[in-house]
């Protein structure tokens, strides 16, 4: 007859086995539910430290958080907390996120400077700089440069300055902010390639009016092309190239080498579908979306009236502008050069049928697109990068001009936590172990 000590395990083992079995079945069920239900992770909060963007997520979930951030549906607000004045790189990344359709909620616990000023050269043929003065709304800021006083303005404001001398100084309420003025001259010669059409005609006109020197190769017939200036894409001659469509294959074939060598390329609409540009494009062209009828005549959103071939961006691309959830403009760096891919087609309609300032706005827009990628002289390029990345004397001004000023809060905002969600893999392991344990215990109980 078994002793009481021997009888006790025999009584408890089936109970434990039953419990383990129940746990295993439950875990398997939850695992199946978890696998069947899509994840609904919230967009992780972002913390900005200097030139770094830090995702506010547990270490083990960082990869998921990053994936969620990148794949977040446009329209979801990103919570951004500044630990201090952001570096330009971080600001531009935030701007790219904003351009991709994510509203940004900027917060900071750190006190902001009362005023800030930034002066940057507007890259393009015109010798002008953009002057950003940030501060509390309505603050009167006195602006001066090395040559003397310039003006008194109400912050925040954005100015186009035709001529500034070396250093810009802003003063208000005894606070002084300064910013150096960069004077770097990029190349100004551009090659436009495409079919003969209204778009080519008006792109050329806009660039020429903005001061660019434009060469052109426009396909008209199988054996006839209209040639203007030098039509062979040449790194030594051209600062940028614009491919308006899939015509002019000789130019398209030369674009990858040109960009690798530091040149800039603007790929418009279906041009990115060309096989020659697969390696340099920012993304694949999507299906054409019709523009909103008559919207090109509006003052606020004239590009909403244009047809759009959305850019389905690749991993390297940075969205610059989006429309109704689709990426309209994206950019990518390719070795030493830059590529901007524009989904808008027939921008000439904006110029012809737009509001009163449409011709000038169309001109500025095209000039800015080209200036954004145009090659700068090698030495100056290095200097510029250094300047841009490390010597941003007015990070807050740049931030304000780029994505707006953050809201100051008493303490950093706690990041939004994701609701608890079972980990399917863990549950599967638990289920397996539990069921196995139950089986073993039952066997042990039977043997005993």
């Amino acid at each position, binding site marked *: 007859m078994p002793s009481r000590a021997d009888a006790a395990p025999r009584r408890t083992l089936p109970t434990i086995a039953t419990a383990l079995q129940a746990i295993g079945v439950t875990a398997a069920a939850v695992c199946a539910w978890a696998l069947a239900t899509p994840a609904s992770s919230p967009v992780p909060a972002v913390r900005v430290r200097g030139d770094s963007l830090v995702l506010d997520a547990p270490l083990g979930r960082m990869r998921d958080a990053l994936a969620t951030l990148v794949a977040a549906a446009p329209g979801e607000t990103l919570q951004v907390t500044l630990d201090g004045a952001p570096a330009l790189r971080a600001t531009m990344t935030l701007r790219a996120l904003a351009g991709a359709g994510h509203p940004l909620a900027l917060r900071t616990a750190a006190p902001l400077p009362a005023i800030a000023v930034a002066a940057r050269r507007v890259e393009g043929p015109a010798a002008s700089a953009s002057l950003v003065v940030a501060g509390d709304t309505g603050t009167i800021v006195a602006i001066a440069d090395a040559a003397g006083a310039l003006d008194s303005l109400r912050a925040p404001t954005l100015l186009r300055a035709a001529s500034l001398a070396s250093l810009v100084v802003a003063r208000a309420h005894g606070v002084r902010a300064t910013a150096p003025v960069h004077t770097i001259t990029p190349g100004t010669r551009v090659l436009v390639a495409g*079919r*003969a059409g*209204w778009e080519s005609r008006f792109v050329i006109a806009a660039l020429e009016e903005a001061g660019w020197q434009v060469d*052109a190769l426009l396909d008209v017939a199988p*054996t006839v092309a209209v040639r203007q200036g030098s039509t062979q894409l040449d790194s030594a001659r051209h600062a940028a190239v614009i491919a308006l469509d899939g015509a002019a294959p000789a130019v398209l074939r030369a674009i990858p080498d040109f960009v690798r060598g530091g040149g800039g390329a603007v790929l418009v609409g279906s041009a990115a579908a060309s096989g020659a540009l697969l390696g340099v494009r920012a993304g694949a062209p999507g299906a054409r979306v019709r523009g909103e009828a008559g919207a090109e*005549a509006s003052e606020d959103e004239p590009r909403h009236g244009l047809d759009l071939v959305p850019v389905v961006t690749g991993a390297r691309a940075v969205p610059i502008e989006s429309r109704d959830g689709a990426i309209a403009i994206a950019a990518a760096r390719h070795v030493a050069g830059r590529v901007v891919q524009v989904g808008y087609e*027939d921008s000439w309609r904006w110029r*012809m*049928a737009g509001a009163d300032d*449409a011709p000038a706005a169309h001109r500025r827009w095209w000039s800015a697109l080209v200036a954004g990628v145009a090659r700068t002289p090698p030495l100056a390029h290095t200097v510029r990068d250094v300047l841009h990345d490390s010597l941003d004397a007015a990070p807050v001004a740049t931030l304000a001009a780029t994505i707006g000023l953050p809201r100051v809060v008493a303490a950093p905002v706690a990041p939004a936590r994701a609701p608890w969600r079972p980990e399917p893999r863990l549950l599967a392991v638990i289920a397996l172990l539990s069921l196995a344990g139950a089986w073993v215990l039952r066997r042990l109980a039977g043997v005993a």
Partner: protein
Amino acid sequence: MTARAHGGSPLATGDRFTFATVQYESGDWDSAPLVAANVIDAVARFTRIDVAPSGTVVPLASEALLRHPLAFLTGHLPVRFTAAERTMLGRYLDRGGLLFVDDHNHDVDGPFHRTCTEELARVTGALRPIPNTHALYRSFFRFENGPPNTSHELNGWGDNLVHEQLLGAERDGRLRVIYSNKDYSSEWSFHPENRKFLSVDNVRFGVNLVVYALTR
């Protein structure tokens, strides 16, 4: 020269060229209804330009004019623009539109010529002769002697008036207005079926006009 990149038919987009005839309040704007078809025919016959198969009529005072950066105006009768037409024409030309005007009368100093040039001058300043070496005459076909003559000027039953040069108004190196006394409205006003009788296509200059408008 470019290779035939993507076959004979271009990708159809909103960038399509549509031949637009201007409708104005005074005069007989619709005196040459077949010009559009013949120019379209010639453009399709010689180029890969994406061209709409039929022309359109656009009132001069209408915003719709801004959808057609090349517009054709013709007639026999005196031309007097209304204030709205004058304003819209100025806006159109300032934004980059090109107006091609042809005097359907093929005469000298006729009522159309006098009134139309006067009206245009009020918008663009005085019209000046376009040099016969202008890029317009070399944009696709080469016309060494400037604008091609029409049979109305040469065939003996017309008025025998040969106009050596077209007139035009230019801004920043781009033509805004091209004015012709050559009566291309008659020359290009035949049924397209009759094109087979032509040993040399007489609408070739129309192709140059379209190519010039689309490329400069």
